[in-house]
């Protein structure tokens, strides 16, 4: 076991300033004209947003995998990301997305709606199976309504806006997005970290966890709120970004002592690093239009995950 937190913090401290210089045009802070404005108003908020969103997704993925005791669990399973996406799509559909705050607020309302529905359906019993099924149902319903909105889009422009927003990106994001997402994601990560010890107990199964004093209802409430805030606010400012919550805990787990509680903060840091690097890759690739972050992460994530599965299979043989 190594100590992943200082290593990841160091990597972030190196990558963050480097990422500010990288882009379609590489910046020389001393030579490039208007470098201070480009850095301060465009690249710094974008980089910070990548860090914030990645941290939220990484922590949510680690908590979800701990909660479901399954390394294949992903924050999307709870239906909060699809709920937030539906909210955002609704704002685009009705043409309310012109203001800087309206789309994220609609998305947050969608996430809150999904959280409330989850709490309503599964919150009383605290049972994990029912909770997961409820999450899948919410995800499926939100996904269907989003598809409905796309298919019934009032005009081609709205449809193109919706489709491109759903792909997830950090293009043209600014400080208002950072101020909206950062506090919510930080509170979300704190809530997930608070659930750490209960997630450790859950390693032994639901009955043993309850015998160790874990309250299933409280744990579920912490997770709904924590995943809701981290994932919901991420979707609100950047669209749907997959794979981070699935891959990052996998990458980080071998560096920890494998207790779910010791995975949450390192996963947040590694998630921040991954999204930051992926966004830099999106910016520097010489394509006609910038590659969407959600697509880039899926393009990196899916083959990587396949490789991981093949390696796991080889080790199992």
């Amino acid at each position, binding site marked *: 076991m190594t100590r992943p937190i200082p290593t990841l913090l160091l990597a972030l401290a190196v990558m963050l300033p480097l990422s500010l210089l990288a882009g379609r045009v590489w910046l020389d802070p001393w030579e490039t004209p208007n470098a201070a404005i480009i850095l301060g108003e465009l690249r710094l908020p974008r980089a910070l947003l990548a860090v914030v969103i990645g941290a939220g997704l990484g922590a949510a993925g680690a908590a979800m995998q701990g909660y479901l*005791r399954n390394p294949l669990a992903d924050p999307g399973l709870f239906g909060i990301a699809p709920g937030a996406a539906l909210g955002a799509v609704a704002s685009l559909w009705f043409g309310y997305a012109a203001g800087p705050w309206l789309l994220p607020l609609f998305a947050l309302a969608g996430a809150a709606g999904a959280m409330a529905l989850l709490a309503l359906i599964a919150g009383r019993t605290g049972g994990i199976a029912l909770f997961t099924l409820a999450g899948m149902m919410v995800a499926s319903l939100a996904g269907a309504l989003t598809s409905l909105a796309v298919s019934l889009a009032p005009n081609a422009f709205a449809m193109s806006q919706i489709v491109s927003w759903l792909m997830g990106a950090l293009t043209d994001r600014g400080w208002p997005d950072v101020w909206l997402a950062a506090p919510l994601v930080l509170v979300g990560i704190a809530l997930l970290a608070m659930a750490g010890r209960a997630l450790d107990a859950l*390693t*032994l199964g639901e009955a043993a966890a309850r*015998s*160790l*004093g874990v309250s299933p209802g409280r744990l579920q409430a912490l997770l709904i709120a924590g995943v809701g805030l981290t994932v919901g606010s991420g979707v609100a400012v950047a669209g749907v970004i997959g794979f981070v919550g699935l891959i990052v805990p996998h990458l980080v787990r071998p560096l920890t002592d494998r207790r779910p509680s010791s995975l949450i903060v390192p996963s947040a840091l590694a998630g921040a690093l991954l999204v930051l690097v992926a966004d830099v890759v999106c910016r520097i690739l010489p394509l006609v239009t910038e590659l969407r972050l959600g697509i880039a992460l899926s393009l990196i994530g899916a083959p990587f995950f396949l490789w991981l599965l093949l390696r796991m299979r080889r080790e199992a043989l």
Partner: protein
Amino acid sequence: MLEARDLVLASRLNGVSAQLRPGEITAICGPNGAGKSSLLQVLAGLLPPERGSVLLDDEQLAALHPRRRAQAIGYLPQSGEVAWDMSVRNLVALGRLPHADAGEAQVDRALAALDLRDFADRPVSTLSGGERGRALLARVLAGEPRWILADEPLAALDLAHQLALLEHLRRAARGGAGVVIVLHDLALAMNHANRVLVLDGGCCAADGPPELALSAGTVERVWGVPARWLGEPGGRALVAGSRPSSNSD
């Protein structure tokens, strides 16, 4: 004292009452579906009974804060699940969760009590079935509960490990803990328990010292199998499927 008063639980328990004493090993026996695991879970405060109550030292168990209950009662489920491949030491340290401390001294004691010191840093996945069973029991012991409730802790173990684990439980009982275990092996219950509670159809069919509670007559009545006991007290063997002869039992 852990006391069950007239426990009723949807078609699983139909009015079970028992007073369990610390310092003893109480075995809960009965055929499949008799309600053994349900009774253990109700006694551990994990399943609320529909009627009746459980009292821990004259206090209603249901009214206790979950953490206080967890400090008093250690529960070892049948599944033996360990979802993540953590080290034995970290697994055992989970027993300290109700106390919200690292409890290194208690964890070390539990590791030593179950001869696990050499395994402390090994991942759980590298343990044999017997070592894993010991590690899971050590997790319960690390919490130093006054009551140890274990659901078929011997099920996956070979004879030597069964006897070793029973010895550990006996040691815990000698140290003042109350030990309640669900057992399928009637000979182990006969030879190692201080007291046996026989359940049948959610009711208490017999309760008392093993020689009385597990008499050949009770075995035939509850399990529907003619049987007789051979050997001396403390070293009894059950011969099932044969009518008791006049000089046995």
